[in-house]
């Protein structure tokens, strides 16, 4: 009797396990295979890139990358990208972290609504906002400036900055601050002497994430700048008419820094969604 009921259960568990493994493999392949092709095609000579069938081993031909290093306007675009990303990083933390602190420490009317509204800012597609934004920017003279673009990127990064710092602050027991207050600290003193040292790694992660959001953003960058293009906008414009091997190399240049940064701060991104840090 028991053997008869056990067998289907084990069967079900085994097939469930297979399904699980298959899903994991599929998801990994979905992300990793394109990245791998990007990688080998970047490090291949133009002939190999255009030929078929393709090898699975990179040739370590740095011709395409070398081309980009000497490409007209490339360095300027890179400089603009870094500048916009750094500005975005600073502004989104300066605005996002206090909001995260307030959400975690204070009870106020409309708190839940506010949390939802923060996420809603991501619900408006940028193309919808681009035209009015461009008009507005031209009126106030912010068009085609690094600062103007950084403002738009900050808007995109703030929801994440708020949510990440909210979860960071919530992870610090309020008693630590209260203990500091009773030991002679003002509210600000307790924050700088106790809370800040404890969340600094998380703040850094949140800042890097804002950096990556700005780094990867192409639409606003393409619409709002002409002379002061960031790297993605610049590549988008130049690569449209480029040969295939250069497209691959351009994509590679864009993807790799973002990947490295995201990998560095993955723990805090999980924390943002309430997944345990494992």
């Amino acid at each position: 009797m028991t053997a008869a009921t056990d067998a289907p259960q084990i069967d079900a568990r085994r097939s469930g396990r297979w399904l699980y493994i298959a899903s994991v493999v599929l998801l990994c392949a979905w992300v990793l295979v394109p990245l791998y092709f990007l990688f080998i095609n970047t490090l291949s000579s133009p002939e190999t890139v255009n030929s078929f069938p393709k090898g699975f081993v990179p040739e370590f031909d740095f011709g395409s990358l070398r081309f980009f290093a000497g490409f007209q306007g490339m360095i300027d675009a890179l400089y603009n990208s870094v500048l916009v990303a750094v500005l975005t990083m600073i502004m989104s933390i300066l605005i996002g972290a206090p909001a995260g602190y307030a959400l975690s420490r204070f009870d106020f009317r409309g708190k839940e609504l506010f949390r939802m509204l923060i996420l809603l800012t991501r619900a408006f597609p940028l193309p919808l906002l681009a035209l009015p934004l461009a008009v507005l920017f031209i009126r106030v003279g912010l068009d085609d400036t690094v600062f103007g673009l950084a403002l738009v990127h900050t808007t995109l990064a703030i929801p994440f900055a708020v949510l990440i710092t909210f979860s960071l602050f919530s992870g610090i027991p309020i008693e630590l601050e209260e203990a500091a207050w009773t030991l002679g600290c003002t509210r600000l003193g307790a924050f700088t002497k106790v809370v800040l040292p404890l969340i600094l790694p998380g703040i850094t992660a949140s800042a890097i994430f804002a950096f990556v959001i700005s780094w990867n953003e192409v639409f606003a960058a393409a619409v709002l700048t002409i002379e002061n293009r960031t790297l993605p906008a610049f590549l988008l414009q130049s690569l449209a008419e480029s040969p295939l091997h250069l497209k691959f190399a351009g994509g590679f240049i864009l993807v790799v820094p973002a990947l490295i940064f995201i990998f560095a701060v993955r723990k805090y991104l999980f924390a943002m969604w309430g997944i345990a840090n494992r």
Partner: protein
Amino acid sequence: MAEIQIKNVAKTFGAYQALHDINLTIADQEFMVLLGASGCGKTTLLRIIAGLETATTGEVWIGGRRVDHLAPKDRGIAMVFQNYAVFPHLTVFENIGFGLRMAKMPNAEVTRRVERVASLMHIEQLLKRYSGELSGGQRQRVAVARALAMEPDVILMDEPLSNLDALLRLEMRAELKGVLAESKTTAIYVTHDQVEAMSLADRISVMHQGKIVQAASPIEVYRNPAAHFVASFIGNPPMNFLRAEPAGSGKWKVAGETVDGPVSAATPLQLAIRPEDMRLADDGLKARVKLVEPLGAHLLVTCDVDGTMIRAVLDSDLTVKVGDVLTLAPQPDRVRWFDPQSTLAVA
């Protein structure tokens, strides 16, 4: 010198009234315990004294100075938290010295004070460690040392021992009592553990539903509970209650027996007696044994007296079986009376 006066303090959280018109004076160097079940408002009261919470109405005075508008740091208090709140990014030394550094004390004085309280709490060898490298008991010692290092007028403790295991709690309890008596500070200690309260306190304030039901010495609270709640909350097992019908001129009918009681009252009362204040006798309440629990030092017997369950603590040499009928006589000088309407004690 720090006498604490709490005058007409009330606190509401939205529609919920956490504290009702609290009035309490705590003498200089007194060890006052706020005792009550969770949600009775004892922690809220402590936090109002600390300045971590603001009272909706009322005044708090410490050492003759009104402090309820001051920040916690300006009240001359130090606090020990339930979860210790030891700063994880600082060493034990820097934790204990944190408040002294905030007060801009010279290095030599900080070192002197930290070393003094560290040796007092037996943590000299831990000064270089971080809180992550400490056990719960050690963290607790650091938290107490940090409060003592401030040499405050008042030390406030919010269930400081409740996260420790039973044995450690016993040890820390005795140590705390000694250290605090020596430090000559006024202490307010919040707990839900009556044994802790009894053993530590000069005076216990029993709180219930946002009110102080009784504030008196431990033995007074135990012997002469001011209200039914105190009688049923303090003591393990708690007091027994039996219904008493008036039989005229100070005589009362309890479970068929006639007992001497208050002369003044004419409505039914409750007779209350502690389990250990009942003796086997020839004359007394007829009690049918329902449950026998041998506890080593004595025997805890649960019996049915005229439909009411009561407990008696009897000599462990006795042989008592379930179903036996015992005759239990309450010690007359230990019998207390309560009015079921007002729930207050009746003389």
